[in-house]
């Protein structure tokens, strides 16, 4: 079982928005969808390192602010025809609290 750490409340992240967690592995972006699901990806786009946390969230996807590649929040995969994968982190949501694991 990966170890989960409490990082904040669901309400701290706007719907269709994202916040950043600073870790010694680098920044991790936590996303909140319009259905209040949460996902976590490394905050560095596999294309040229753009901060995914600054992108526009839509459905279960985020668009990188740098060159508009679109990524699936669930898998980290770029939406075709682009090919790339952003590192994913396990997250859990329990009674409004967000828990993150640093084991990719």
């Amino acid at each position, binding site marked *: 079982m990966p170890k989960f*750490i409490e*990082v*904040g409340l669901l309400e*701290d*992240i*706007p*719907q*269709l*928005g994202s*916040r*950043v*967690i*600073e*870790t*010694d592995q680098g*920044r991790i972006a*936590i996303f909140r*969808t*319009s259905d209040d699901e949460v996902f976590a990806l490394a905050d560095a786009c596999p294309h*040229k*390192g*753009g*901060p995914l946390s*600054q*992108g*526009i*969230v*839509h*459905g279960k*996807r985020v*668009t990188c*602010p*740098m*060159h*508009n590649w*679109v990524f699936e929040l669930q898998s980290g995969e770029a939406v075709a*025809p*682009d090919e790339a994968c952003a590192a994913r982190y396990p997250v859990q949501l329990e009674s409004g609290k967000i828990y*993150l694991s*640093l084991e990719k």
Partner: protein
Amino acid sequence: MREKLVLVGNGMAGMRTIEELLEIAPDQYDITVFGAEPYGNYNRILLSPVLAGEKTINDIMLNDEQWYKEKNITLHKGRWITEIDRKNKIVKTADGLEAAYDRLLLGTGSNPFIIPVPGSDLTGVISFRDIADVDAMLDASTSKKHAVVIGGGLLGLEAANGLKLQGMSVTVVHITKTLMERQLDKTAGKMLQQSLEARGLHFLMAHETEAIIGEDRVKAVRFKNGLEIAADLVVMAVGIRPNIDLAKSAGIYCERGVVVNDTMQTYDPSIYAVGECVQHRGQAYGLVAPLFEQAKVCANHLAKYGIARYEGSVTSTKLKVTGIDLFSAGDFLGDDDCEEIILQDPASGVYKKLVLKNNKIKGAVMYGDTIDGAWYFQLLRDGTDVSDFRQSLMYGKSHLGDSGHGGQDAAAAMSDDMEVCGCNGVCKGDIVKAISSKGLFTLDDVRSHTKASNSCGSCTGLVEQILASTLGGDYSAATKAKPVCKCTDHSHEEVRQVIRENKLITIPSVFQFMEWRNKDGCHVCRPAVNYYLLSSWPAECTDDYQSRFINERVHANIQKDGTYSVVPRMWGGITNPTELRAIADVAEKFSVPTVKVTGGQRIDLLGVKKEDLPAMWKDLNAAGMVSGHAYGKSLRTVKTCVGKEHCRFGTQFSISMGAHLEKMTWGSWMPHKFKMAVSGCPRNCAEATIKDFGIVAVESGWELHVGGNGGVKVRATDLLCKVKTDEEVEEYCYAFIQLYREQAHYLERTAPWIERVGLSYVTKTIVDDEQQRKALAQRFLESQTYVQNDPWRERASEGVHEHEFKPLAVIAG
């Protein structure tokens, strides 16, 4: 259980419909496809280059059998459907196979017309329709000598050219005096004939075939005037007839084709039809561009969205004979009420003719130089009034104020390693390869696969040309009203109209009302809709920050390394020691790595950490400075020159005019960025004539210029009018901004907007109509009352969006 969809006819229109359907509703149906030909789905258009030896059969496959497997589509290739049992909803093949359907799609294409003369059933008499025909021709060319092609239309000429290249001696027989008379006028037809003759083809014009002669194999062709010529191979290419046999035998209402309504539905509501077999509003089509439009509409209804309508198409034609450039569209002969503009230069082999009626293009024929074909076709379909640029119309699009790209736009002349897209470093060869190997058809496809034309867009025309020349036909032709994005079929205009008429003030209500495909939309439509809401209902609507691009969300420009830049306003380019000192202080305090003077007469602090932004803004606010909106689709800068304040030539006070206009207009959101400049005399040191709104002072007052752009595609302004007083300058300026705010598409700058709606429209609304002008100016000032709060102050001192600038948590160790 999923519903069953059966497609009869594994051709271009039917399969395109299936592909469109899979895009929008991948899981709705169990799909079964019957095709008489023993292959997957291929690109019929490219049979001509295959015959000419420029491509192979493998090159032209669109979907191989593996693709059908991956998509879980059952493919029955090499099987004819001979019966539709409509009562029990079952189709049957000749050899007894059956398949049940809930919805049936007919895409049976058409049959080549064979002239019923004696001998037309001899071996060696073939048509030009499918792979089997091409194989037969290639086979004949290895052992036989004389080919006769009956029919001097598009197909006949492509066949003739191919057979000639395969080494046969070829005679084309045509019933009238002009080749391709349905697409070309006499002059262009003659020029075409001459250049084909120069390649060694023979022509028998105005000859009618009487009989084909031979025992079992063709030996000769005889004409009504008694002439007889030797032939080992006869290709009949005199026309096609919609293939309606199957539909007719099932009692589905047919005339010349299977009759469908605007949703592509036949008289039997569970049966749809697309492609060449169809008759829509009395019209049958034989080119793929309209068939693809039908496919899109049909898919929309099969997916049960039920919102798209097919309203018919205007088509254009290109001949796919390498080295011959020919384009034709619309009514190129015209009638007594039409005017013609003709440009003819026999020495360089160029002929262009435009047919105009009431200053709108009705038809075009071009030979030798077809670069502007797509542009004329667009003007034709949009019904654009061309009076504003009629004099330069003939010289093409590049003469319309575009001087940015030095005429580098002849796609055919480019070598494979020449760069097409400077933003993404994409060469011509990359694009050609992606088009052929991935089977791309549209500009959007090319954009997403290669990234060419995906950024600044200045190479779009070039990419479209490469697409056209690689594919042959005129595929990429954009449909008339472009949808906002892939989430909807609605256009920008429709969205705006719905927002206004129904007083919608939130994004979800728009998406719901207009049946968006995704509940959250995407990064393309959300910012656009957010803008339309804000500009329509400035008092009622709340800005949705999650729908704004990052720069506008945090009021700074994101940099390539994820830091930000900060550009404070300097009204009209004027600053003072206090401001400069404050800038120097924050630069030191926050260790700003770069301080730069911008091209917009102010200072940029580059490389600021996101967390530092609010504190830095607070210091700048304290010295009286506010956001410069260097990041926004909004008013950017108002450049000025020193003017009458200091200059020996100055005729009016340009600095104070510029500073005042900037104070009045800052903060307003626009469809795209908006720049202004004020020059103190016609020497124009503020470069006002490449701005969205440019003001040039003259002795008697001010000249007002609009629609300039100094960016990707340079466009000098058009002169709107001259005015006398400062008050008039203001009123015209606000009215122009408001007209642009209310009418342009999101991300359309004033230059392309004016080219779309025409300068005369803007003049009519703003200069000629005082009441409208005043009303527009009034609406602008009203909407300004809601936005002139410095967004930096709100974030630095009023606690707005604190979450943007702080991490949610810091995890150490």
